[in-house]
């Protein structure tokens, strides 16, 4: 499904991703862990098409499509979804209008008619109850005045609405209390299927008790420095990241 090959990206003069390789097959859930500042959010943003990052080398292939060649909106229409670490508040844009525009954008890409109002509302009801947000989205602007937990649940709601092929969750667990974590995990698990893949970025092992990964990777200084099964997460919890850290300065030409 997804093949990332030697991905290098920078912002301004600062190299952040330094030759990252990753392959994700349909239905797999990959966890990416790593210390703060290692480039996890950058990877997520580069995959989703944020153009403030410059890709300097490498390729990303999603089912035969060169992802790096597409605008962010077209990547979403091809099935990429990013749950933001810090969801954005957009005053004046209603949650429902936002989701309707998103859904219809995708549908027009697939040659489908805009969704019928009744079907749309039914879908909203179904997806919002999945993350226990039912009735709380109508008449409110996108993320405006939402608590931290509500914002994260709204991300999962949007994921459920858009039914992506590849979902990237960036620290969806951060700032959640245990109840909210349970709700969010339940939503993610309900979405798991043999056709949908996940990249779950997290700093802590506790999320992976609820959302069990097939693979765990450690990202450090812009590269994947270790990969393993779900037991790697436990090992990281115990030992921290220091034993895996690459020196942060470039040693390749030493």
């Amino acid at each position, binding site marked *: 499904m997804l093949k990332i090959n030697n991905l290098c990206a920078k912002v301004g003069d600062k190299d952040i991703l330094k030759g990252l390789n990753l392959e994700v097959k349909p239905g797999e859930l990959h966890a990416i862990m790593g210390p703060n500042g290692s480039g996890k959010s950058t990877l997520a943003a580069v995959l989703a098409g944020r153009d403030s990052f410059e890709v300097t080398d490498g390729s990303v292939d999603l089912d035969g499509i060169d992802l790096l060649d597409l605008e962010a909106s077209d990547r979403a229409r091809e099935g990429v979804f990013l749950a933001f670490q810090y969801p954005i508040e957009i005053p004046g*844009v209603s949650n429902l209008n936002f989701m309707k525009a998103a859904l219809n*954008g995708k549908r027009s890409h697939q040659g489908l008619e805009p969704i019928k109002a009744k079907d749309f509302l039914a879908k909203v009801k179904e997806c919002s109850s999945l993350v226990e947000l039912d009735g709380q989205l109508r008449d409110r602007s996108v993320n405006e005045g939402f608590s931290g937990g509500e914002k994260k649940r709204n991300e999962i709601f949007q994921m459920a609405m858009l039914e992506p092929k590849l979902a990237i969750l960036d620290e969806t667990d951060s700032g959640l209390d245990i109840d909210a974590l349970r709700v969010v995990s339940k939503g993610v698990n309900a979405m798991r299927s043999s056709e949908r893949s996940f990249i779950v970025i997290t700093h802590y092992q506790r999320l992976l008790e609820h959302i069990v990964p097939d693979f765990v990777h450690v990202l450090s200084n812009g590269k994947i420095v270790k990969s393993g099964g779900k037991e790697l997460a436990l090992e990281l919890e115990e030992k921290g990241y220091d034993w895996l850290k690459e020196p942060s300065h470039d040693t390749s030409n030493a």
Partner: protein
Amino acid sequence: MSVFTDKFSATLPPPTRKSERWKYSPIAKLLNHEIEISKASAQGLNGWPESLMPNPVLNLDAYLVVFKNGVFEPTLSDLPVSDGVDCIPFSKMDQSGPLEFSNVYHQKEWIGELNDTYRQDGLSLHVHRNVKVDRPIVIHHLTDGINVASFPKHLIKVEEGGELNVVIWSSATDRSSGMYNGLLEASIGPNAILSLEKVCNEGGKVFHFSHEHIVQERDSKLKMHTFTIKGDWVRNELEIISRGKGTDSVFNGAYLPLGTEHIDNHTTMDHTSSDCTSSELYRGIMYGHSTGVFNGKVFVRPDAQKTNAFQQNTNIVADRGAAINTKPELEIYADDVKCAHGCTVGQFDLDALFYLKSRGIDEKAAKALLVEAFLADVLSSVSSTELSAEIMSLYTERHGW
């Protein structure tokens, strides 16, 4: 001397860039124009362009009063309006003459003198005591022709307890050029309400000057909106004088110029009496190589204790070539007052834009959503949803969202 002043003489001199009030809206180009004084007579539908409707807001159930190139068009207008309202063009008045006004301008200027000298016609609109006018009155000004000039002036008096909604809509055909110089003087009596929407949707190359001068008496309410949908060169000037206790003045505006359009909004809110509130919100998005000016003066005079005045001008510069100069000017001479103001110039929120795009909304649609949100606070206070919907759809159509 110039081509223009040779034809249109005045005792006051035309403003130059040395005047602070005209520094960012120089009129040199106008002075080189061969504009004629329009002496046409009414032509009715025969003289009306096919591309436009005499009624600019078809969905709005309103009384329509139409002027073309400054001349009243009786056959296209719905006069008289309901009982308790005298709504008569000056040209149709008997010896009673137009309303007496005691409005005092902060400054007499060349542009106003031209209107006084060359005025073709105007409307005298008198709402009697406690009369609530049943429908809005839409005054439609059309400019159609090469180098034509119109100089309308409207007088509006709402007596104690009265209520009135007026829409002043100016349009121009794409072939048109010349000048629109429109004045409006209004007096809002005690406890009376005036809602006024001014919409400029002019094609062609017309120098548009308009000046509203509004005096509010005790406990009166003003709700004013100034929308510039389209206009090559537009200067909107609004002066509000609160001279009774407990008045409330809301005045909002929006502009989204394209190309090389120029838009200037000058506003003055003069609080002379106590316990009054004013709230001003102007929002603009500057596209292409457009230029803009916002100048908002608020005076709080020594007797205007317990004034609550709010002013905000928010601008988005959407393209590199566009620019806007924004300036609040607050002069506060009373101590027990609340005044808040903020003028900002920024870009589209890139985080919000990326968020929308990451959900599959394309750039154009994403920007349209952000624009709609940006304008929502201005549009939501418009007197009727029919009118606000029409305005939004004209913006949408023009910008191709």
